[in-house]
């Protein structure tokens, strides 16, 4: 197996541009996913089961169907419906955000449920309302516990963003495929792509561990 470094170097500018898009897609996905996911997570925890049902259905749908299928639905169905034509990047951001929102909602729910029952009881016994108890006592503690699983979700999102290559969003895998098509070579494009993802995920997990350590000593 000989490696042709010349074609890697030729494609490097495109692959790096693709890396930027991968980062952009993932950051946008986790940010919108967190905003939406926190709302959905709170919705899931509404004690009135009927009001909570739409939120539970949302999470059920987005966790119960493949992200790949969701990307296709958003790209070929939802986005053209609203914009008239589709756009791979817009559809990618939307699909990744909607998907990660479901996981963030579950992370929030898990975080809240992991707080000892006595905390809510103590807060309520002091006359705080349920909402006040959540806001001042439960959620601040839950958020801290959510950081490791949220970081994990971010890493998953970086890797899963590769799926949007099928809707022609020019991220890492999109350019790797272009490279394969042009030169009929498989090792160079895909090993390079794998390497780029590794750089992203490893540096992120390094950063997360640093943050966790900082929070632990606080």
């Amino acid at each position, binding site marked *: 197996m000989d490696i042709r470094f010349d074609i890697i170097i030729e494609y490097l500018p495109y692959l790096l541009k693709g890396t930027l898009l991968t980062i952009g897609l993932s950051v946008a996905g986790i940010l919108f996913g967190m905003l939406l996911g926190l709302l959905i997570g709170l919705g899931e925890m509404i004690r009135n089961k009927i009001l909570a049902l739409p939120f539970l259905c949302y999470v059920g749908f987005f966790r119960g169907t493949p992200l790949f299928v969701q990307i296709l639905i958003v790209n070929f169905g939802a986005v053209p419906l609203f914009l008239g034509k589709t756009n791979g990047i817009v559809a990618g951001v939307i699909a990744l955000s909607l998907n990660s929102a479901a996981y963030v909602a579950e992370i929030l729910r898990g975080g809240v449920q992991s707080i000892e029952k006595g905390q809510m009881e103590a807060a*309520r016994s002091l*006359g705080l309302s349920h909402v006040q108890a959540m806001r001042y006592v439960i959620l601040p503690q839950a958020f801290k516990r959510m950081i490791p699983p949220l970081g994990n979700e971010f890493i998953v999102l970086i890797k899963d963003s590769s799926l949007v290559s099928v809707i022609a969003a020019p991220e890492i895998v999109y350019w790797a495929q272009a490279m394969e098509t042009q030169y009929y070579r498989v090792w160079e494009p895909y090993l390079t792509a794998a390497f780029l993802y590794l750089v992203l995920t490893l540096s992120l997990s390094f950063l997360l561990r640093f943050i966790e350590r900082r929070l632990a000593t606080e």
Partner: protein
Amino acid sequence: MIKVVNLKKSFGDNEVLKNINVEIKPQEVVVVIGPSGSGKSTFLRCINLLETITDGHVYIEGVDIADKSTNINKIRTEVGMVFQQFNLFPHMTVLENITLSPIKVRKLSKEAAKQKALELLRKVGLEEKADAYPDSLSGGQKQRIAIARALAMEPKIMLFDEPTSALDPEMVGEVLEVMRSLAKDGMTMVVVTHEMGFAREVGDRVLFMDGGYIVEENTPQELFENPQEERTKAFLSKVL
């Protein structure tokens, strides 16, 4: 002050409180004793609706707290509760623990709440711990802070759910001391405990519970020296 009428509480098919009737007068210290599973804690938790009431009524100063139209948050500000596991808020300093509810519920200014908190901390002998986090405190200190936190709402009634059961033996004394001085100041108290010495010394009345009923109630003197019911005798012979 507290009037409990035909109180029943079930968890599913399990009837924990079968028929509780009791009246507690202002400034009275009532100690509840009994074997585990007798419903003591559930009884206490029903008094500030930490457990929903299955049937019957609990009146606090004439207000039926089981009534749907009662503002339970308002009632809870009048009834302080101290838990076996302290339940301090670990992400807040001692001072923040104590001032949270006065600020958010009583709408006290931060400064006023702080002054009040420091005064309470002096009372429980922990003024120097105002800026400490709960994790750095011993069990006895935590429980004294928890008492100060409940007192900050200026409740008319204090409920204690086995306040010394999770403590190392050498720390029981300091918590009981705070409770003793509280009783001396005229606080109405309902205390679930296994500390028979405390019951005898501080209690005005002792309720012995077993199997979801109040089996016997009397002054500590009478109940401990001269129990009438077989079950009371059997229990006391094991714990005294």
